[in-house]
C-alpha cells in the first residue's frame, strides 16, 4: 500500500489559485477544506491515496479552459477526474495540484439517430448514453462493467472495453470527435465527428492516453443498432482445460460471439456466496457465451456453440430465454470482483492479456505460482480476447501476506509479457503499473510514446506521474536543427 505524503510544493500559490478559481466556477465549486478534499484521495484503486491540494467542479468547457489556463500560468499540475471508478490510479490527485472533477458536466447534448451519433459531456455515465439512444433502436457499444456509474470522459481517457468488446470494439472504435482543453488551456476539437477527418488521427492517439494529453469536454460517439437477437449460454465443465478447449473451438469455427467469459472454481464459489447465482454444482469452470446479431445467424451460431461445448465435455448447458434469465446468468460473472470479498479479507484485481491460444499454459502456470506462494488466485476472464483478471486473495491481517500477494500479482504480469501479451487490457497503466512499462517496452519505445506527450504537454503539468516511469524532457530536441525556419513551418510565411 502506498500513500503519497510529499509536502505541498507551494501551498501559498495553491491558496492564491483557489481564490482565482472562485470567480470561474463559484465558491461552492472550489473545495479547500481538508476533510472534503480527502473524499477525492483515490479512485477505484484504493491502494494509492493522496489528498488533492485543491478540488474544482467546473460546469462548462469554458470553465475547464479557464481553470487550466490558471494552472498553466501558475505551473501547478492538474488531474481530471470523472466518476472515479478507474482501476489503475489514473485519477490519483497530486498533493500540490488541482483536481478537476467533471461530474457536473453531465449533459447529453444530442442524440442524432440518422447519423448514429451521440454528443455528450464527459461526466455523462456510460449506460445513460445507451438509455438515451434506446428509443431510436440504438445503443452505445462499449460496456465496461462499471457502466452504471463510470463516465464517458473516463472511458475516453482509459480506452475502456467491457465484456462485449470482443465483437464490438473498444472506446477508441466508437469515438469520432473530441472537444478538449489542451494543457495550455486552449479549447479545440480533435476530429470532426465523421470518423474520417483529414490529418493525423489525434482522436485515436488521445483516446487511451489516460488523461495526460488534455481534458475532454465534449465527446462524439457512434451509436450501434440494437441487435435483433441475443442468446446467452452458460456451460459447465469439469476442468479449465476443457473450457479453454471449447473457447478455441468456437473461435476456430469462425464464430465471433459478443462475449466469451470464463470463471474458475474459486471465482464460482465466491459468486455463489455473494449472489447465489446457482451455477451448476461441481464445475471446475463455467463459460458464458453471448451471441448477438440477426435472428437467423444467432440461432445457427447458438446451435453450433452448444455442439462445440458438448463435444468438449460440458456436462450442463443452460440457455437464457429472455432478458431476465440472461441477467441471472450474468449476475455471477458481474459480481465476481466484489464477491471475492466474501471469501477473502483482501484481494488484488489484476488485468493482463495473453494471446488466446496461450491461455491454458498461462492458467496452469498461475496455478503453480499460486501454490508456491500459498496465496489463492481466483480466475475470471474475458476468454475470447485473452484478457485475464486474476483475483489475488490474501489476508492483510497476516504480516507479509500483502507483500507476497503483490509479488505474485507482479509475477502474473511477467507471465503475460513472456507470452507476448500485455500488462493491461482495459484498466490502464495509471500510477499502478508504470513500473512495469519498461518490462513490456524498450527505452526507445517509451521515449517515442513520450514524443506525443511533449507535443501536447511540454511542461508536463497534465496528470503527471502516470503511465510512464520517468518523464521525458521536452525542451530541446537533441541533434542539430536544419529543418525549415520556424516561421515557414508555422505557416506564417512562405519560402520558395
Amino acid at each position, binding site marked *: 500500500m502506498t500513500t503519497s505524503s510529499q509536502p505541498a510544493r507551494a501551498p501559498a500559490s495553491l491558496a492564491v489559485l483557489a481564490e482565482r478559481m472562485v470567480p470561474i466556477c463559484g465558491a461552492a465549486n472550489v473545495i479547500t477544506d481538508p476533510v472534503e478534499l480527502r473524499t477525492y484521495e483515490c479512485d477505484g484503486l484504493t491502494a494509492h491515496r493522496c489528498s488533492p491540494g485543491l478540488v474544482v467542479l467546473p460546469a462548462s468547457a469554458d470553465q475547464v479552459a479557464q481553470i487550466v489556463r490558471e494552472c498553466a500560468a501558475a505551473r501547478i499540475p492538474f488531474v481530471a477526474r470523472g466518476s472515479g471508478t478507474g482501476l489503475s490510479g489514473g485519477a490519483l490527485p497530486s498533493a500540490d495540484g488541482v483536481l478537476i472533477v467533471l461530474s457536473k458536466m453531465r449533459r447529453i447534448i*444530442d442524440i442524432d439517430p440518422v447519423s448514429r451519433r451521440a454528443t455528450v459531456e464527459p461526466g455523462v455515465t456510460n449506460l445513460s448514453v445507451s438509455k438515451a439512444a434506446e428509443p431510436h433502436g440504438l445503443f452505445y457499444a462499449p460496456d465496461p462493467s462499471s457502466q452504471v456509474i463510470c463516465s464517458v470522459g473516463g472511458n475516453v481517457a482509459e480506452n475502456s472495453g467491457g465484456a462485449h468488446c470482443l465483437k464490438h470494439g473498444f472506446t477508441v472504435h466508437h469515438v469520432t470527435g473530441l472537444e478538449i482543453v489542451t494543457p495550455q488551456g486552449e479549447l479545440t476539437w480533435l476530429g470532426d465527428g465523421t470518423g474520417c477527418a483529414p490529418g493525423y488521427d489525434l482522436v485515436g492517439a488521445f*483516446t487511451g492516453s489516460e488523461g495526460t494529453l488534455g481534458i475532454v469536454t465534449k465527446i462524439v460517439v457512434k451509436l450501434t443498432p440494437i441487435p435483433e437477437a441475443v442468446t446467452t449460454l452458460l456451460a459447465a465443465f469439469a476442468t479449465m482445460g476443457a473450457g479453454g478447449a471449447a473457447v478455441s473451438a468456437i473461435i476456430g469455427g469462425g464464430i*465471433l460471439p459478443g462475449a466469451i467469459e470464463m470463471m474458475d472454481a474459486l471465482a464460482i464459489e465466491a459468486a455463489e456466496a455473494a449472489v447465489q447465482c446457482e451455477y451448476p454444482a461441481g464445475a471446475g469452470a463455467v463459460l458464458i457465451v453471448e451471441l448477438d446479431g440477426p435472428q*437467423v445467424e444467432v440461432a445457427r451460431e447458438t446451435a453450433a456453440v452448444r455442439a462445440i461445448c458438448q463435444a468438449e465435455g460440458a456436462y450442463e448447458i443452460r440457455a437464457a430465454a429472455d432478458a431476465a434469465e440472461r441477467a441471472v446468468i450474468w449476475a455471477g460473472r458481474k459480481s465476481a470482483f466484489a464477491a471475492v470479498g466474501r471469501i477473502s479479507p483482501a484481494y488484488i484485481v489484476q488485468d493482463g492479456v495473453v494471446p488466446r491460444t496461450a491461455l491454458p499454459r498461462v492458467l496452469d502456470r498461475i496455478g503453480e505460482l499460486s501454490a508456491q506462494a500459498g496465496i489463492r488466485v481466483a480466475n475470471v476472464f474475458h476468454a475470447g480476447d485473452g484478457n485475464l483478471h486474476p483475483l489475488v486473495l490474501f489476508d492483510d491481517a497476516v504480516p507479509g501476506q500483502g507483500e507476497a500477494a503483490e509479488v505474485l500479482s507482479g509475477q502474473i504480469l511477467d507471465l503475460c509479457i513472456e507470452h507476448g501479451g500485455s500488462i493491461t487490457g482495459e484498466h490502464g*497503466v495509471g500510477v499502478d503499473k508504470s513500473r512495469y512499462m519498461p518490462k513490456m517496452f524498450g527505452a526507445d519505445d517509451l521515449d517515442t510514446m513520450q514524443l506525443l506527450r511533449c507535443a*501536447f504537454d511540454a511542461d508536463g503539468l497534465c496528470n503527471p506521474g502516470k503511465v510512464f516511469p520517468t518523464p521525458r524532457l521536452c525542451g530541446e530536441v537533441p541533434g542539430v536543427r536544419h529543418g525549415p525556419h520556424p516561421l515557414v*513551418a508555422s505557416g506564417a510565411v512562405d519560402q520558395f
Partner: protein
Amino acid sequence: MPDPVLAQLSRACQQVGAAAPADAVAGVTPSYAASPASTKEAAALLRAAAEHGLAVLPRGRGTRIDWAVPPRRCDLVVRTDRLSQVLEHAAGDLTASAQAGVGLDQLADVLGTAGQRLAVDPPGGGQRGPGQGGSGTVGGLIATGVAGPLRFRYGGPRDLLIGLTVVRADGTIARAGGKVVKNVAGYDIGKLFAGSYGTLGLITEATFRLHPLPQATVHVTVRCANAEAAQAAVDATARSPVAPAAVELHWPSAGAPLAVSALLEGEEYAVAARAEVLRELLAAAGGGSAETSAHAPDWWGLSPAAADGTLLRIGFWPGRLAALLGAVRGAARPAGLDPVLAGSAAAGVLHAALPAAADPAAAVVFIEALRAALSEPAVTGAADRPRPPASASALVLHAPPAVRDAVDMWGPVPSLAIMRAVKDQFDPEHRMAPGRFAGGI
C-alpha cells in the same frame, strides 16, 4: 569520384544505389534509392540519411504514391520491396504480423489458407481484377489509411492495427502496441501513423487483428430516383437489424439514378434469409424494386476515378447524406462538371471523381465551391443540431498536376497546430516526406 553519401548509405544498407527514373514521385526525382531487408537495416540507413540531412520518402509498390501533395524535396527513396516477409500468422489468435513491403494480395493468400482475412478492401486491394493499380502493401495501407466498403463494419486500417514497428527519422527503432487484440499499455502510436503518409517515420512491421472469411456473401441493391430516396435507403439499411458489412452508394452522373447496395456476410442459409428482409426494407425506403445477387455490382469496391484523374474524399455525418449529395452537385454544376459520386455512404465517406480531361480551372472552382458548401449549416446539419465547428471535409486524394498545384489538397484541418507539434517532435528536421501532409507538414 565516388559519392561519399552513397558510400555511407551503402555501409548501412546492402542494397543502395542511384535512384531510377521510376523512383520519381510526382515529378520529384530522388538521388538515391535503398531497399533495406530488415528493421535493423532500415534503422542504420535512416541514421546515415540523418547524418547527411537527407529528405526521405518511404515507398511500397507505388499503388498510391501519387496521392497527397508531392514532397517538397526527396533525396532518398526507401523501398520496402525487401521487407517482404509475413512474420507470423497466429491463426488460433486471429492475428498476423507482416513486414511493411508485404502485398495485401500476398497476405490475403496466406491468411486465406486458414479461412481468415484482414478485413480491409481498398480499391486495388487484391480482391478485384486489374486496372485499379494492383495490390498495395501493408505499409502503404497504413500510411495512407485507405479503406473500402468494409470500413462500415470493420473500420479502417487504424481499427485493425494492433502493433507497429517504425523507424524514426533519426534511426531510432520504436515499437508500440503488441500482438494481442486487447491492450491499453502506453500511447497508441499506431493510430498516429495510420494515415500519416510517411511524415512521422518509416513503418517496417505491423500486426493486425484478423476476422474469419465469411461463408457466404450477398448483395442487395436498389435504384433510387433522387438523393432523398437514397438517404432513406442507406439509413434503413444502416439502422436495420440485418447487420450489413457494407452499405455503398453509386451515382455516376447528375442525370442518372442513384444505386444503393448493401453487402451481407454470414452463413449461406442465414444470409439468404437476411437478404430477403433487406430487399423489402430497401425497396420500401428507396422507392424502387431491390435486387438480390450473389455478385457485387460492377462498380463495387472500385475507385470511381482513373489513376490520372481527380479524386476527392468527402467525410460527413451520415445523417446529412441527401444534403451533401445536393451540395456536391450544386458545386459541380456552375463549374460545368459532372463528377461520379461513390462511396461508403453509411460510414460517412463519399468519393467524387473527375476525369483526367476535366478542365483544371473548373476542377478548382468545383473544389473551392464544395468546401464552402461543406461549412453551410444546411449541409452540416448545424441549423438543427449541435455540431463541431467543422463537421465535413473534402480532401483531394489525387489530381493531375494542374489541379494539384492550384488547390490546397488537404483543405482546412482541425487542430493543425497540434499536428505541427507532433511532427516537430517525431521529425524535428522535417526530413520525412516533407510537404506531403496537411498544412505543409
